């Protein structure tokens, strides 16, 4: 006679893990023994309960993390900041600014508010969490070494890093938007931007909870 049936075997049977002959043997035993049947029913019901409770989570969409986060981590790992302009200077500089079309006299003017972002962009930076879909996509939020909150973003024609100063957002780094790819295109793919972030950042990028807190405080 085969070995006696224990709970582990009943569980394996419920989970469909047994080869056919073994499964048939357990099935017969369970049919003949009310205690084994109760055990099998308990395990089957519990498995179904967990599957039903957690199953819907797998229907919720999840996006890949932004390229900024990955490039930023790489940039920092390579200690690029050592090659960078000292942070205090970098924070006040605009690196690689390419707005407007070459040859047209519509460039950035030499004014105090010249690099303040227009309302729709500023609104997106005020309200959107990183990774949310929209005409503007925010990729990453962090605190700069001067204490300001900064966020990297990609819009239709412009991608960059802006920091909260006074009443609005001002550009600290910008580059002309690159060609659009699939829906999951990671914002940017711009190593220079990641290096700029690595030079400006104090500590770690904000996680989702940190972003919500900062947003609730108006990024101040």
């Amino acid at each position, binding site marked *: 006679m085969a070995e006696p049936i224990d*709970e*582990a075997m009943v*569980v*394996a049977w419920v*989970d469909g*893990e047994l080869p056919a002959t073994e499964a048939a043997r357990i099935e017969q035993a369970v049919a003949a023994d009310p205690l084994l049947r109760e055990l099998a029913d*308990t*395990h089957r019901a*519990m*498995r179904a*309960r*967990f*599957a039903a*409770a*957690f*199953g*819907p*989570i*797998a*229907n*919720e*969409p*999840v*996006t*890949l*993390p932004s390229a900024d*986060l*990955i490039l930023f*981590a*790489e940039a920092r790992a390579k200690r690029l900041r050592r090659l960078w302009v000292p942070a205090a200077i970098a924070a006040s500089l605009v690196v690689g600014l390419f707005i407007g079309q070459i040859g047209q006299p519509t460039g950035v003017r030499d004014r105090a508010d010249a690099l303040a972002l227009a309302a729709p962009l500023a609104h997106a930076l005020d309200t959107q969490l990183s990774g949310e879909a929209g005409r503007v996509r925010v990729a990453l939020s962090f605190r700069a070494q001067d204490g300001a909150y900064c966020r990297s973003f990609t819009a239709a024609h412009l991608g960059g890093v802006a920091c909260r100063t006074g009443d609005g957002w001002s550009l600290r780094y910008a580059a002309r938007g690159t060609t659009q790819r*699939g829906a*999951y295109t990671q914002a940017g793919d711009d190593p220079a931007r990641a290096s700029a972030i690595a030079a400006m950042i104090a500590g770690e990028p904000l*996680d*989702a*909870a940190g972003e919500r807190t900062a947003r609730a405080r108006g990024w101040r």
Partner: protein
Amino acid sequence: MDAFETALVRLLPRLRRFAHGLTRDAADADDLTQRAAERALKARGQWQPGTNFDAWAYRILRNLWIDTARHRQRRDKVIAPAEQAENVGGPGEAEAAAERLFLMRAMDRLPDEQREAVALVMIEGLSYAEAAQVVEVPEGTLTSRLVRGRQALTRLLSGGE
């Protein structure tokens, strides 16, 4: 997106579900999923085509959680879980979230190794062999953890201690 990214994007919702089972907290689960995806993208050179991609990605998330949990224990976490309300959407969603929370509280009481076995098999629906691959233990070890976890849950969910 290339084949690797496509496979990862396809798996992300399930990784996030597994993260709910491990962390028992919706905000922690989102955070862990994002970090695991980052790590998978960075470590893509280490994945060997032809081997089980899902098990590889689950393993990354699981190992990341072990590091996180260990780190947190040192900090002695006393903060009450904040965002347990989750997203309350369509009809029945509030009940579903409450049920999930109830099961997560029961899973809080399991030792880590039993909890991850339960999450991989009962929540993720992995076979014993796949689950053992994720945790990197022999299949017999995985099944005995699973059975002990289920026995404990049976007691917890039936109101006993």
